[in-house]
């Protein structure tokens, strides 16, 4: 355990820790491009210069291991000059087209320039032109001019995805990133290269030009794309959600996430959402005022239903808390244990690609199974199918999946459900076409909230319970399953308004000298002499 001093702070680090790792762990600022905590060391950008006492020359922090008694700093004038002119070298052939570059606002070059650079370019030579808007594959566009050849993306395809599509071709100022002839950058983790690219050389086709980075807010949540439960950030503004990026969690996903998971935001956006509360009776679809009232009205209907004729279908896509409350109402209020687990991925559930992707495309299958067994419910899917066929199940509540993209049997399953006398569908998405179902006689469709709009927890494949909090609201009128559960049990929703004093913090700004009565008389602090 060597001890060292970095910028005057004494640290004790593990054997073999590099200087940059030590600084990173202690939240000290150091310029770097090629080093990434999740990849091997390349030492090519030469930006992470540090001065070590007793060593006449500057060293790179990413490839120097801390030894006992090292005195390190990266704030001296010598270091600052080195970083500044290192940056100048990076920018020699850089096009600086920030206005049309998607990375602007979160770009390593912009950040380091503001922190360490701020020089005027000394170059008189014209810039080396390279390929722009190169189609690298189904998900990614490359701009060779912007690339600073840090080789992070190459190391990613080499070490993490192990697909080896990318390489650096040519020499000198002609060097550029590319794929071998006819090959595409096409793997299940390709979009991670966009995240780790410190500049705007690799951009995501899906996100390209949709928004500027500074218009987006982010919030941490859990990906609902599969049972791994990667920790992610969703980026959104008032127009909706725009992208998903991974956040670091060493126990679940490390620094990465899969490409499929990047799409989960789409099903939470308005285009795919059920916005209206609809009711079908006597062959006409009627739009109801709001889902809360519809659920409240259902309380009367459900309390009159014979318990054996009522059933509930659920998927592994809601939160643990919601399962608890709806099962609680079912088991304790309705004295009913006809709860069925709709799992379209049961057959592939054990598949695993060795990195992150799992065959079970539900984030909370484990959570639902645990909840069902804690209420002592053990049912078979075939019982439900028989019940519908033999007409013993007359009222069916279906809590549909949120991430509808992974449910291929959606239409088919709902067609089956439509044979019951009274079908109640709680759904976030509008993809199922109920109009086509001939046997549907009485139905209610209630819009629900998605995982980005609620606070709760998912239990992943390994039984790890991960909490997440609400990011934003897309569909303000939609209900959560919690709310639905209390409404159908006959309770009213509890709204706890925060007292206004708690919302605003008193400050010391002096009160306005112009009072209302002054304003009324159009007379201010001075009076006429």
């Amino acid at each position, binding site marked *: 355990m060597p001890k060292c001093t970095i910028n005057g702070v004494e640290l004790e680090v593990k054997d073999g820790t590099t200087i940059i790792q030590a600084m990173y762990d202690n939240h000290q600022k150091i310029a770097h491009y090629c080093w990434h905590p999740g990849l091997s060391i390349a030492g090519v950008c030469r930006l992470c210069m540090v001065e070590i006492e007793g060593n006449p020359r500057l060293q790179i922090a990413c490839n120097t291991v801390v030894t006992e008694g090292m005195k390190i700093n990266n704030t001296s004038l010598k270091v600052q000059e080195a970083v500044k002119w290192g940056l100048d070298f990076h920018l020699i052939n850089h096009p600086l087209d920030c206005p049309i570059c998607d990375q602007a606002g979160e770009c390593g070059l912009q950040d380091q320039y503001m922190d360490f650079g701020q020089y005027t370019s000394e170059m008189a*030579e014209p810039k080396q032109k390279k390929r722009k808007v190169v189609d690298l594959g189904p998900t990614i566009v490359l701009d060779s001019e912007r690339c600073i050849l840090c080789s992070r993306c190459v190391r990613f395809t080499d070490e993490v995805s192990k697909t080896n599509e990318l390489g650096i071709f040519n020499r000198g100022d002609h060097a550029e990133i590319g794929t071998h002839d006819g090959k595409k950058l096409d793997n299940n983790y390709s979009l991670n290269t966009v995240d780790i690219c410190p500049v705007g050389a690799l951009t995501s086709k899906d996100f390209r030009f949709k928004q500027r980075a500074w218009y987006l807010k982010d919030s941490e949540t859990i990906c609902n794309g599969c049972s791994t439960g990667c920790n992610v950030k969703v980026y959104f503004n008032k127009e909706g959600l725009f992208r998903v990026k991974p956040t670091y969690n060493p126990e679940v996903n490390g620094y990465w996430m899969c490409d499929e998971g990047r799409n989960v935001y789409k099903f939470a956006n308005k285009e795919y959402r059920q916005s209206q509360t609809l009711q079908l009776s006597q062959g006409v679809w009627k739009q109801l005022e709001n889902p809360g009232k519809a659920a409240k009205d259902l309380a009367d209907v459900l309390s009159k239903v014979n318990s054996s004729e009522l059933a509930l279908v659920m998927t592994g896509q809601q939160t643990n808390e919601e399962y608890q409350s709806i099962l609680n109402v079912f088991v304790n209020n309705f004295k009913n244990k006809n709860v069925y687990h709709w799992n379209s991925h049961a057959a592939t559930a054990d598949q695993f690609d060795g990195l992150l992707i799992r065959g079970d495309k539900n984030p909370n299958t484990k959570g639902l199974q645990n909840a069902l067994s804690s209420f002592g419910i053990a049912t078979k899917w075939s019982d439900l199918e028989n019940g519908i066929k033999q007409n013993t199940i007359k009222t069916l509540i279906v809590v549909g999946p949120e991430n509808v993209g992974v449910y291929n049997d959606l239409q088919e399953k709902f067609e089956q459900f439509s044979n019951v006398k009274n079908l109640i569908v709680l759904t976030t998405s509008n993809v199922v076409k109920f109009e086509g179902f001939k046997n549907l006689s009485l139905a209610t469709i209630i819009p629900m909230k998605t995982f980005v709009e609620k606070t709760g927890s998912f239990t992943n494949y390994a039984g790890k319970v991960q909490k997440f909090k609400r990011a934003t609201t897309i569909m303000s009128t939609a209900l959560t399953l919690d709310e639905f559960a209390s409404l159908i049990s006959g309770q009213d929703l509890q709204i706890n308004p925060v007292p206004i004093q708690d919302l605003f913090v008193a400050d010391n700004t002096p009160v306005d000298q112009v009072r209302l009565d002054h304003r009324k008389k159009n007379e201010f602090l001075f*009076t006429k*002499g």
Partner: protein
Amino acid sequence: MSDTPTVLEQKPASSQWYLIGITKGLVITFSHLIKNIFNKKQMMTINYPEEKYDYSSRFKGNHILTVKKDGAIRCTACMLCATNCPAECIKITASEHPNPEVEKYPISYEIDMLRCVFCGYCEEACPVDAIRLGPEWQTPGLNGADFTYDIKHLAYRANLKGGVQSVVDDKERLKAGI
């Protein structure tokens, strides 16, 4: 009252003799009247709306989106103007341009003129001289008229005669290797 602090000028008692002031004022009025009768050209007022006054080209009036040499819109959809706009009245939708040299361009660019405060910050923010505040200052409209101007109006309205050319040219820039 008199000991209350004041920022108003205290007039001397002599100012109460207002007849002098009135006479002075009338002299100015009549001297202008006579001057205008005998020298109409020098007259300051005009017969609006038959006659119109041309403001200097530096006047900050209605926006113009400039065009490139080939007549295509100059804006690169960087949204710096929209970011800088204090009234939040610029709305841009960007898209991928078929020509990789252009790369990004706006498929829709709208300014809500009724919210605009004509501060000129958009003009200042633009890196490519794509938006200017022009000398045009009249914005009449009937009840219910739409004051959300789109690209067609901002860049190609009839009185711009095919568009105002931007001073920033990408082709020249690329040739010079900057």
